[in-house]
């Protein structure tokens, strides 16, 4: 099973513009798709008689503050255990309305992964059974992994970048 086969099948099913930004990283196929395509695409890959992407390895949120209108992203890592092929699907949404569909209906494992992405990035997974914070405390009123929250104390003078020629 070649990576090309997967993109061809997806483009045949969902249209040529549904799969873009196709790259390969150390043998793992990556591509970007629209938020609306995620659920039908994962269902298609799950039920496909040959591909059988039936294992959700991980789900990661990411924040690109400079990408206007596409600030928040989710990366789905799926794995076809039968073919031993991994796949990364990415989708982006604006930070004002970071709505993604939940995939808990397909993969039970997505439950806590989506809660983690919500907790740290404020990504809203529509239809999630229990979208509450998981690792941070409930009283927290911000999403700490977003890039606008610097990690270190801004008053420290020994870590100014120009002192290090950065």
């Amino acid at each position, binding site marked *: 099973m070649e990576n090309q086969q997967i993109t061809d099948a997806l483009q045949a099913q969902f249209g040529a513009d549904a799969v873009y930004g196709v790259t390969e*990283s*150390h043998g*793992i196929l*990556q591509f970007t798709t629209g938020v609306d395509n995620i659920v039908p695409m994962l269902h298609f890959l799950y039920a496909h008689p040959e591909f059988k992407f*039936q*294992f*959700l*390895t*991980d789900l*990661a949120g*990411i924040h690109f503050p400079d990408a206007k209108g596409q600030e928040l992203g989710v*990366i789905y*890592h799926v794995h076809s*255990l039968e073919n*031993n092929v*991994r796949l*990364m699907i990415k989708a982006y949404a604006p930070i004002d309305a970071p709505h993604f569909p939940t995939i808990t209906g397909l*993969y*039970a*494992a997505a*439950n*806590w*992964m989506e809660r*983690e992405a919500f907790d*740290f990035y404020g990504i809203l997974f529509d239809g999630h059974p229990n979208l509450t*914070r*998981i*690792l*941070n*405390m409930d009283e927290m009123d911000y999403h*700490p*992994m977003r890039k606008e929250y610097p*990690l*270190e104390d801004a008053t420290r003078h020994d870590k100014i970048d120009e002192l*290090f*020629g*950065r």
Partner: protein
Amino acid sequence: MSEVALVNNPNVGLDKTQKGGPYVNELSTLNLGPTHPATHGIFQNILTMDGETIVDAEQTVGYIHRAFEKIAERRPFYQITTLTDRMNYCSAPINNMGWHMTVEKLLGIEVPKRAQYMRVIMMELARLTDHIVCNSILAVDTGALTGFLYVYQWREFIYEIYEEMCGARLTTNMGRFGGMERDFTPVAIEKIHKLLKELPAALKEFEGMVMRNRIFMDRTQNVGGISAERALNYGFTGPNLRATGVDYDVRAMNPYSSYEDFEFDVPVGTKGDTYDRFLVREEEMWQSLRIIQQAIDNLPEGPYHADAPHYYLPKKQDVYHNMEALIYHFKIVMGEIDAPVGEVYHSVEGGNGELGFYLVSDGGRTPYRLKFRRPGYIYYQAFPEMIKGTSLSDAIVTMSSMNVIAGELDT
């Protein structure tokens, strides 16, 4: 129980079907954790009980959340190694080396064969400690303390090998990008040989005490089972998945660090219950010993680290006498060396399953985004489903056999 006691018990003789009575269908809430001896870590289960039977369970995690993924976005790559050993601290070298291999993949460093074999030995030793902890504590949770003492001294002994290799015992920070920090010392080699010679006897003794023990079998068989379909859907990996009968092992499926050179079996269970998880871990310990034996017998000669001066810390004595070594030392320690742009996912077979590192680099000195795939975090979700309808004592052994490590759960 004597007859008098039965008579005095207000619950005896109550008609449970009768509506409106004080004891009818009354559910109680029981907090299992956050600090409970049987959770072996800080996480909470709020159980809804109907008498002895668990009706529902709600988990609360995050009590020791230390924001590793956020901290990692500000740290140079080599400083992140110390974060990884605080995840699954029962098998810290696997975490360290998984992270090193991820970065080597990004940087394109080729690791010499000797270093790869050394890594395999250290990782299998770590797997041994992990499984020794899990299985012997499972026996303790069922009431068998003695077996635990038989094998636990060997975990201690493996920690002495760690000490020989990196100076630390629990949070090891072992190895470097490009290989190992130091070569095997004669003491380390000697200790590994001693372990290979003497651990099997202790392990056999432990197995003889526990494996066919009627009490242990009654406590663990058909307890906390999960089907292969549900386990896959829940993202199970590692021994917990293999206990259900799925032979997914990262070492066999996507070999890294020369695992393809070694001969080993991937044990699988049939029912996915607590007893199967115990048996799979026991057999994996034998397989780990087999791998270590092959690796130490065929340990290649040659350097124990790659020639990658930009990333591999020079020897301390060189730093004092050699200008270039001093420059590299400074640049590495201050985190002045930029990594190439790229995106890498690498996974290793951790003590509990697929331990993955998803690294996004924007070409800076720190990762842009680093996501740890912690196996324990993902499979622990299934716990309520596995214990519903069982009793509290079954829930304890189920949790124990899943090997939920709080550090891994909460990053």
